[in-house]
């Protein structure tokens, strides 16, 4: 089984990197290889420019925080935190100091003598974090650290976790399948799929200039238009048309005229407009009121379903069955060569 294939990634000191990808993309395997828990069939792992591919996990100082936190059930909160220092035979004085500091940092001072099973999910997460920090790791490996928490807490902890890492100057590799989490937390995002890294960049780069249709859809969800190039070149708006004669516009690209392409526009950048200003027209199939916004599914004949988000204030302007126009700002639309395996295959998540 190939879980991570031909994967190259460099993480800087003090960087918060999110490894983002769908389930089964090889994210956890990558973390395990870095931690030394899984031996790669080929390839190397460097920590501080030192080759540690053959080193045992305990020699790496790369601490893994697993999805379930793996707090040792037979130890109290304090004993869990002191596990690393104990092993390293740190002097009593220093151990005591570390413990007090960390308990305070993760706000568990009052629960020091509790057992993990007596803690709430959030407390367990903080306990596991404190345990990891106690060993002063060179790199902290977080495997879906927020997954087991409920929705509200998960959002609160995003900021907390990131600011803690930044305040302590930690190097973090954070694995997640949640694109929003990655966008909010990361300095850089590495998008991984089928064991390969497709794109590495700041959240803004990955969101605004996706490297492939897959990234365009996986990070922020896109609408797609398939056609061939009528006009392209440096600094010129790319013009794409399809067999039914519909024409859309996208940002400049270097692909030659007549090549088959896919245009991707984030659903958040797709606008509902008068038919006269529209690139495309379609019929509203469904309108889902989601509170702050209205989510519209629009059937564009021959192209399938387009999704659009409308502010709640405009919700009375559109109803199911209406024919509406769609367009977008030309700068926000990316152009990709048509994927070899077909578009559907390219966008498939698992």
């Amino acid at each position, binding site marked *: 089984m190939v879980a991570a294939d031909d994967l190259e990634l460099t993480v800087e000191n003090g960087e918060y990197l999110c490894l983002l990808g769908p389930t089964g993309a090889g994210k956890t395997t990558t973390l395990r290889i870095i931690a030394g*828990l899984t031996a790669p069939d080929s390839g190397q792992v460097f920590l501080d420019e030192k080759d540690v591919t053959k080193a045992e996990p305990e020699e790496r100082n790369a601490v893994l925080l697993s999805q379930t936190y793996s707090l040792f059930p037979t130890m109290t909160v304090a004993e869990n935190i002191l596990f690393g220092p104990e092993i390293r035979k740190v002097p009593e004085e220093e151990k005591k100091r570390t413990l007090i500091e960390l308990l305070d940092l993760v706000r568990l001072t009052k629960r020091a003598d509790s057992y993990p099973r007596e803690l709430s999910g959030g407390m367990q997460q903080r306990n596991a974090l404190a345990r990891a920090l106690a060993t002063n790791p060179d790199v902290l490996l977080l495997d879906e650290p927020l997954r087991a928490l409920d929705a509200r807490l998960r959002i609160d902890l995003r900021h907390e976790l990131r600011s803690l890492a930044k305040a302590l100057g930690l190097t973090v590799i954070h694995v997640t399948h949640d694109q929003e989490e990655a966008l909010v937390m990361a300095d850089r995002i590495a998008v991984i799929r089928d064991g390969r890294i497709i794109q590495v960049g700041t959240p803004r780069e990955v969101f605004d200039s996706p490297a492939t249709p897959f990234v365009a859809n996986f990070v922020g969800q896109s609408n797609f238009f398939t056609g061939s190039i009528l006009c392209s070149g440096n600094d010129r708006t790319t013009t794409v048309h399809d067999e039914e004669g519909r024409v859309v516009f996208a940002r400049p690209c270097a692909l030659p005229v007549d090549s088959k392409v896919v245009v991707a526009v984030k659903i958040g950048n797709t606008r509902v407009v008068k038919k006269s200003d529209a690139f495309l027209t379609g019929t509203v199939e469904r309108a889902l009121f989601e509170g702050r916004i209205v989510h519209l599914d629009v059937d564009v004949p021959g192209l399938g379903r387009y999704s659009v988000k409308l502010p709640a204030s405009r919700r009375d302007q559109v109803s199911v069955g209406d024919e509406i126009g769609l367009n977008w700002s030309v700068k926000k639309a990316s152009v990709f060569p048509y994927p070899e395996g077909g578009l559907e295959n390219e966008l498939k998540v698992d």
Partner: protein
Amino acid sequence: MKRQDQLLEFVNRKGFRKGWSAFIIAFFLLFVVLPTVFVVTYAITDWDAISITVLSNPKTMAIIWDAIAVSFAIAVIVTVIDFFAGLPVAWMLVRKDFRGKELLDTLIDMPLAVPTAALGFSAAIFWVVDPSPVPLSLSIISSPFILIVLLHVVFSYPYMVRSLAAILEEIDETYETAGRTLGASRLTAARTITLPLFRAGLATGVILCFSRSMSETGGTLIALSTMSSLGIVAADSFATGPTLIADWRTLSFTDPSYTPALAFVSILLIILSLVLLVVLKLLIMKFHLPLRRVWPMPEKMLSRGIFPKLKDGSALFFLAMIVLVPSFFIFTYVLFATPQAAEWDSFIFALGYSFLLAGIVTIIDIALGIPFALYISKHREKRSSHVLDVLVNVPLIVPTAALGISLTLFWSNIGSLSGLEFFILVLAHVAFTYPLVVRNVAGAVEEIDPSYEETARTLGANPMQSFRRVLYPLVKGSILAGAIMAFTRSLGETGATQAILGNNAPTAPVFIVALVQSDAFFQAGLACIILIIVSYVFMLMLRYITRKRKEVI
């Protein structure tokens, strides 16, 4: 301190760990599996002897086939009885709440605390027709076959109930609830929904009961011997596979011409048990019980009123009358019997010898069984680990008497046995107790999320530290449970011991067999009681430890 650190560092090296794993596996293959089945090679090297003295001798062949057929028939009947009598009790233990449940839970395991030698004596005195019966005894059985069935039910019954209860606990009750809200009666729901999910537990229970019955020697010998001293002649010529081995083994000490026949019976028993293990496993997994059909009205009727009470009542009655009373009848016997002069020195020596043996065996089991259990449970993805996992069960299935013969042949092939009796006994007992420790520990380790240890490793612990600080506290209970099982099993074992050293083997159970065979009933009774009390204390410890473990998790 420094030297210790160096040692630890050495022990944690990859190369050392690989070598250690290899050593553990080699030990298992060479000292547990190989001796167990070694006797089979006798068929190749000494086929001539077998064919001349055994195969061409119709009288011997008839005895062998009779004994083996009897063994099988008894094992089948016992297993079926265990299932039907055990299922309602297992159900009660898991699904019902009632006063005295704790007590019932304890009572079920009671027969396990009694060494089979004592059980055989106790049950025989309770059941067998006696011209001057002991007060309160039933004194109604005169057929050795029925007596042995009744005896084997006593000590296999707890295994069946425990296996069924264990799997029942895993089966989500909501399935049944769903079935009942869809209109099925209690009986229909239980029968069509829960029972089909039972197969795994059934397989374990059936295999345990079957192999226990096939393998039992000491209790059977004593029961038969008691029966014959009570004047029932049929018991003299009655033999199961293991008792035949025991009898012939005794004779072979003076007349070596019995060796080929002994080897032949052992080979047959070993091969048949192994084949049976595979067949039973496949059969239970593949065989579809005809459970789909539904008879709504009669089943509805049977689910109500007096019938469920009748079912539970008769199951409990069975437990009391067939299992518990015969197990402990020996206390009554000793109370009413006329005291005889008894010679205690040799029994105390035998008891001490048994304890020393069981102690050493348990230490070896733990020292070499835990690493082996860790190896198989941590290399689940490797095929070799699956093979080893299956092999571990072999010594549990093979009748211990056959195992004893096999071991004797194995070691006498290598060198002279004289002076090394204790050593050989230790190895024999290790062979059939080792799987108990391995099963327990491997089962517990597999339950535990590997991420605990992995996290410990990334936090800087080497493999030794992560075992000692993280894994060990989590599986401590299972290690102790396995150790106590191994200890009591070794303490009460007769078949293999006798096969190796004959009736002169200085262990307590063999000593009791010898007492019964020389009609020293009173002293045998007292010796049994002492053995029961000692085993019972260990049993209590086991329950205490396992209960505590449940609370932690």
